[in-house]
């Protein structure tokens, strides 16, 4: 890759987290450079969402380090993560169903008038602009997001992540509820954001969503990283082998989860 010489934008090192007895993430290490898309792949239950939730501040890790631009980062809650420019589209979308699109978009970062009250019109105006970029047919700015379709809700979640000048974007299965047209649009969006120098973790259980967009892929299985490497050095079948069997191909760097050869 072009930027290997610089310090990585994000470096997760030996991150572990367990729920009860289950090691959901077990000594996982991944990194991400500016302007790079890293696809994080693995079966359902492999630990992908849990790993990135450590980065986004949703979970406290049991062990391991997070470095941002080479420096130790203190991330104890989602507010800390946002301060580092980390924005996340959660798999569950994490929307407050009972309020409207603009309220969700600005949740935690509301625009206020000079008297300190909520500036709903300004928020609606910006919401219209950013939603227009993602979903030009969207009109239902006054309705609680509960009443929106799955695709519209997903658009709101994506809009929220891209609206605040993210430096690091985490997209956990961002196209799960989208149709082919909207999926393509998200693909375009990812390319555009990448060109702006944003680093993106793109998470999916489906290799086809990721392969064309990612510069590198990392594969997880049973909470461990099987291996990672540039997509140009691997075939789709080899990546599938990593996902299903945990077999690390020659083009990838093996992780702790790689099957003993």
């Amino acid at each position, binding site marked *: 890759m072009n930027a290997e010489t610089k310090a990585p934008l994000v470096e997760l090192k030996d991150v572990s987290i367990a729920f009860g007895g289950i090691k959901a993430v077990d000594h996982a290490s991944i990194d991400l450079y500016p302007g790079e898309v890293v696809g994080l792949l693995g079966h359902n239950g492999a630990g992908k969402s849990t790993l990135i939730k450590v980065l986004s501040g949703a979970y406290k890790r049991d062990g391991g380090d997070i470095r941002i631009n080479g420096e130790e980062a203190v991330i104890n809650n*989602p507010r800390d993560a946002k301060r580092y420019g980390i924005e996340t589209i959660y798999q569950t979308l*994490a929307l407050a*169903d009972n309020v409207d699109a603009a309220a969700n978009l600005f949740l935690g970062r509301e625009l206020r008038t000079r008297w300190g009250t909520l500036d709903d019109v300004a928020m609606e105006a910006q919401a219209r602009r950013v939603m227009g970029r993602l979903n030009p047919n969207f009109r239902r700015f006054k309705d609680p997001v509960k009443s929106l379709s799955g695709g519209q809700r997903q658009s709101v979640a994506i809009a929220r992540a891209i609206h605040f000048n993210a430096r690091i974007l985490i997209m956990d299965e961002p196209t799960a509820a989208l149709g082919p047209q909207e999926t393509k649009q998200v693909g375009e969006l990812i390319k555009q954001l990448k060109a702006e120098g944003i680093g993106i973790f793109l998470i999916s259980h489906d290799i086809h969503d990721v392969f064309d967009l990612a510069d590198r892929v990392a594969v997880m299985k049973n909470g461990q990283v099987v291996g990672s490497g540039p997509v140009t050095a691997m075939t789709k079948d080899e990546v599938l082998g990593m996902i299903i069997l945990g077999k690390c191909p020659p083009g990838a760097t093996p992780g702790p989860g790689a099957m003993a050869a």
Partner: protein
Amino acid sequence: MTDAAEVSTAHLLATESPIKRFFRATEIDTRLLGMVGAMLVIWVGFQIFGKLITGEGVFLTPRNLWNLLVQTSAIAVMSTGMVLIIVMRHIDLSVGSMLSFVGVLTGVAQVYWLAPWLGSDNPMIWVVGVAVALGAGAILGAFNGFLVAYAGIPSFIVTLGGLIVYNGAAWWVIRGETVAPMDSYFELIGGTPRASWIGSEASWALGGLVCLAIVVGIVLNRSARARFKFPQRPLWAEAFLILAGCAVTLGTVAVVNAYAWPPLIAERYAKEHNIPVPPGGLIYGHGFAIPVLIALGVGVAMTFLATRTRFGRYVYAIGGNPEAAELAGVNTRKITLLMFMTMGILVGISACITAARLDAASNSLGQFDELYVIAATVIGGTSLAGGVGTIYGALLGALVMQSLQSGMTLLNFDSAVKDVIVGSVLVFAVWIDQIYRRRQS
């Protein structure tokens, strides 16, 4: 405007029935309208029933409606906080006994400490008395909130414990005695003495100000939306909202002014002020009573808090999805603590109103209030599942509850029968609401 949203709304407007079009254009909450309708049915029902039974309908008289408003005040104040507590998926069962404890504290402070020390009728007494009530409410509420938010104990348990603890604490302070009388200025908060009625002129002036505020509010909102070229409500709908709002406001003023002072009080007042009494006697309207003004003020303030501030936005978001709010960076624990503290302050206000109205503090103050407050809130359309509820709904709910109670009292219903009916109405109202909501979705 060429905005597509406008086009599609216009299209909808053209194809809908006139009634639907009316509600869409005015954005009036049909649920609210249903509640107002139910309340009017209750009022007219009591009026007719009273006429049949006693030969005289007294429910729809200015005097009764005025009393109804005063009696509703304390519950109404607390219901505005309970809405937001329930919206956040919590509950506060401790408000009744907290009111008792706080009322007893302010009573003891006034009668046993302040009056002997400052001399009775010192105007500082009521100020300190109110401060004690609000401060104690804030501390107790914050303590509830701390246990819920930071210790992670379910609010049902925390406040159930609080119900018992505060009740015991109130008993511990005065051992079942009655502390009386309250300070004479403090008493005005309850609405009983003459000086706590603001009179006709002031009431009209206040009504006028409210009407002005309605107009200004609608115009400002319109101009803000115009600046961003957002779709607007049709002009006729705005005009209707202004007219309806002003009609309700001025109608209320007319009613509270139509209730004249008792002749003896008017006479004494005339004598004190050397006003000659005309042959027909002197007619002074009561106008709004101070507790009613307090309740209305609290209603406005809480509506502002709920809809115009970040705090309110977070309360609703937490109620909609607590995890999402936390992930979005909302400090949900802090908001929870502050919300319970706000509830405590409202309890402090209601404690002042109740103690002042009775001109005494005793352990029976606020008994069962938690049930009435929760009932008012739920009748007012707050969903126990969280995320949904309005302040104005709770205020109306409180008025409906109180209407039932006073109506039955006027007709000399046995108190056992009253309880049976009030409880049944609560369940019935929620059932109707469920059916309505299911139809809507």
